C-alpha cells in the first residue's frame, strides 16, 4: 500500500512536468521534423531498408551515441548509457515502409502538416527514436537505466517482424520494458499482440487445362469462386475473429484470359486455435478447388503471430493511461499485429504508442498533423521516465 502511494506520488510529479516539457519540445520539434523528412524521402521497402538504416546510424552517432551497430538482419541499434545501467529500456520503431522504391518519395512540408508516402507509418516514428538522445540532452533528462534505441527492419508484410525477432533473440542485456513507437495515431494504446495469420492463395491454370470442361474459366473466374467460398466460412463472434481479403492480383490486359492469380488475406483472432482451424479450412478449400476444377490452388502462409499480451491492469499500462489522461487524450485500446508481438513473446512487458494524428494512412498522400506532435513525444519521454523510476513493474 505504502509502495503504491509512493509510485503514484512519483508518477504525479512526472505528470506535473508535462506542460513544460511540451513547450520545450515545441521549440525543438524541427529536429524531429528534419529527420522525418530526410529519412522519409529515402525509399525503404521491406527487405530493402539499407539506405534508410545507413542514415539512421549516422544520426545515432551525430546525436551523441557511441558505437551504433547494424546487425545481420540490417537492424540499427545504439545505446545511451544510464547513470547506473543495471537494466535496459528498449525504444523501437520499424524502419520499413509499405511503399516500393518506384514510388516518388517526396514529402511536402506545410505549416501544419507534412504530406507524402510513409510519413506517418513510420518515418516520424523512426525520426523520433533517432532524435530522442538529442532531445533528452536538450531537456536535461538523464536515465538510470540504459536506453536501447532500435530501428528494426523486416517488420511489415512478408517481413513477418523478422528484424525485431532476431534482435530480441540475440539480445543479451536484461530488458525492463519496451516501447514501440508508431507515427499514428495519438491515443493508440496497444498492450497485447493479436493472433494473426497472413496468407496468399495462389492459383495456377496448368498448360493442359481442359477449357471445354463444365464450369471452366480463367484465373479471374476461379479466384472469384475462391473468394465466394472464403466468405461462406463462418467466423465466431467470441472469441473475436476477423478475416480481411486485402488484395487480389490477376491478369494484365483486357483481352487475354489470365492463368495465374493471387489473393492476399489476413485472419486475426483472440484465440490461436481459431486461427489454426480457419487455416485448415482455407487449406481444404484450396484442395477442393484444385481437384474440382483441374487447377492448382494452394495456400502460402507468409506471416503468423500468436496471441500474447500483458494485462490491462499491468502498471506499465496504468502509467500509460495516466499520462494520456493528463494530456487529455482518450486511449484507443487496440491489440497490435506489429512489433509489440515479438517484444511480448520474448517475455518483455511493452506497449505501442502513437505520436500524432494523420490522414490517408497507407496512401501516397498520407498526411501528418504537426500540432499534436510535441505532446505525443512528451508522452513517450514521460513513459520512459516512469519505467526508469520503477513505476511500471508489477
Amino acid at each position, binding site marked *: 500500500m505504502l509502495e503504491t502511494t509512493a509510485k503514484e506520488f512519483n508518477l504525479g510529479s512526472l505528470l506535473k512536468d508535462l506542460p513544460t516539457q511540451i513547450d520545450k519540445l515545441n521549440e525543438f520539434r524541427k529536429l524531429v521534423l528534419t529527420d522525418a523528412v530526410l529519412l522519409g524521402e529515402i525509399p525503404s521497402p521491406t527487405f530493402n531498408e539499407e539506405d534508410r538504416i545507413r542514415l539512421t546510424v549516422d544520426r545515432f552517432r551525430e546525436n551523441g551515441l557511441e558505437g551504433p551497430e547494424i546487425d545481420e538482419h540490417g537492424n540499427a541499434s545504439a545505446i545511451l548509457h544510464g547513470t547506473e545501467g543495471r537494466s535496459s529500456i528498449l525504444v523501437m520503431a520499424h524502419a520499413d515502409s509499405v511503399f516500393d522504391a518506384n514510388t516518388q518519395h517526396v514529402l511536402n512540408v506545410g*505549416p501544419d502538416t507534412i504530406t507524402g508516402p510513409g510519413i506517418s507509418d513510420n518515418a516520424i516514428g523512426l525520426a523520433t527514436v533517432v532524435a530522442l538522445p538529442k532531445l533528452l540532452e536538450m531537456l536535461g533528462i538523464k536515465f538510470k537505466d540504459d536506453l536501447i534505441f532500435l530501428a528494426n527492419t523486416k517488420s511489415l508484410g512478408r517481413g513477418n517482424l523478422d528484424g525485431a525477432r532476431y534482435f530480441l533473440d540475440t539480445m543479451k542485456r536484461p530488458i525492463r520494458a519496451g516501447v514501440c513507437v508508431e507515427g499514428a495515431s495519438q491515443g493508440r494504446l496497444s498492450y497485447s499482440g493479436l493472433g494473426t495469420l497472413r496468407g496468399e492463395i495462389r492459383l495456377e491454370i496448368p498448360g493442359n487445362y481442359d477449357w471445354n470442361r463444365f464450369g471452366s474459366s480463367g484465373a479471374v473466374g476461379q479466384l472469384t469462386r475462391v473468394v465466394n467460398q472464403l466468405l461462406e466460412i463462418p467466423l465466431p463472434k467470441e472469441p473475436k475473429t476477423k478475416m480481411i481479403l486485402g488484395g487480389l492480383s490477376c491478369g494484365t490486359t483486357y483481352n487475354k484470359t489470365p492463368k495465374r492469380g493471387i489473393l492476399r488475406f489476413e485472419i486475426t483472432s483472440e484465440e490461436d486455435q481459431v486461427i489454426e482451424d480457419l487455416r485448415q479450412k482455407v487449406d481444404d478449400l484450396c484442395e477442393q478447388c484444385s481437384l474440382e476444377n483441374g487447377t492448382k490452388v494452394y495456400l502460402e502462409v507468409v506471416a503468423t503471430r500468436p496471441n500474447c499480451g500483458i494485462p490491462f491492469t499491468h502498471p506499465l499500462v496504468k502509467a500509460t493511461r495516466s499520462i494520456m489522461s493528463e494530456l487529455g487524450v482518450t486511449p484507443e485500446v487496440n491489440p497490435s499485429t506489429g512489433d509489440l508481438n515479438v517484444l511480448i513473446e520474448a517475455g518483455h512487458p511493452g506497449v505501442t504508442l502513437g505520436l500524432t494524428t494523420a490522414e490517408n494512412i497507407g496512401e501516397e498522400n498520407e498526411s501528418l498533423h504537426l500540432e499534436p506532435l510535441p505532446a505525443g513525444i512528451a508522452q513517450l519521454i514521460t513513459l520512459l521516465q516512469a519505467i526508469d523510476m520503477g513505476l511500471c513493474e508489477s
Partner: protein
Amino acid sequence: MTGDNKKWLDQNTFHHGEFWDILKLVKEKEKKGLKISLCIPTLNEEKTIGKEVLILRSELMERYPLIDEFAIIDSGSEDKTLEVASSYGADTYLASDILPEEGDKRGKGENLWKAIHQLKGDIICYVDADISNIHPRFVYGLVAPLIHRAEVQYVKAFYDRPLNYSSGLRSSGGGRVTEILIRPLFSLFYPELTNIIQPLSGEYAARREVLEIIPFPIGYGVETSHLLDLYLKFGLDAFAQTDLDRRVHRNQTTNALGKMSFGILQTFINRLHSQGKIDRIPDMETFYRRFQVEDGSYNQLTQEVVEEERRPMIEVAGYQNRELSS
C-alpha cells in the same frame, strides 16, 4: 578535348560526396574567418519553401553552423510563401523594401542583386525555391570549394540527368534550354565555357568581391551574364562546379522555356555587343561540345558541325538547263 580542358575538369569539378564531413567544413570556415549567407529568391513557392527552410536551417545553422545568415527574398508572393517560411524560422524580406531608392523591378535577378546589399556574408549561396528533394548537399556542395580553395570565386551546381543507363554511358548536361540554346552558343563564341556542365542551374555560390562588381540582369539572363562577365574578368580558373546528384523540380512548359530563351538571348547578344564580338564576328567555331560520363569521369566530346550552304537552285546551271529543256 584539349589538355587544358581536361586539367580544369579534373581540378575544378567536384562531387558533393567529397564534402560530407560538414563539421570539418565548419572548422575550416571558422579558421579562415569566413561568413556565409544563404539566399532563397521566391515568388509563390508555398509548396516547396517550407521543406527548404526546415532542412537547410535545421541542418546547416542549428546542427552544424555552416551558414551564418539565411534569408528569403521575395518578389511579392500572393500565396502563403512568406507565412510558411516564417513558420519554420526564416528571415523574410520583400525585395521592394531593400534599397527602395533604386526602385522595384520584378524578377529573380532583382532578388539576387538586392541580396548582396541585404546579406553580410563573405560568401553568398543562392538556392532556387522549387527543389522538391532539397538536401543540405545543395548548400555545402557549393560553398565547400570556396572554403577550401582561395582562387575559386564562383561555384555552379550540376545535376544527374541520365539519358542512357543501359550502356554504362550517359550524356550529361542540362535541361532543354541549355542543350539547344546555351551549349550551341557557347560552342560558337565561348568554347572554354562549355566546360561548365549546367550553365543555367539556379544554385551557385560566390564570393562577395565578385558579385558586387558585376551587373545583374533582373530576369532569365542572370545566370548566363554571371558566367560571361566573370569569365571575361577572371578566366575559367575562377570557376568550379559540383555534382549535386539528382534535383527534382517542376517541369516547365515549352512556352515558358521559349520565353526564358528569349530573355537569355537578349543578355547574350548584349554581351556580344559589349565585348565587341557582334560587330566583328570572329570566324565561328565549327566544333559542337557536349559531355559524356563514363565510370564517373566527365569527358568533353567534340563533334564537327559545319553548316555548309547551297546557293539558290535557280543559280545552278544544270537547273537552269532543265528549265529550258522543259
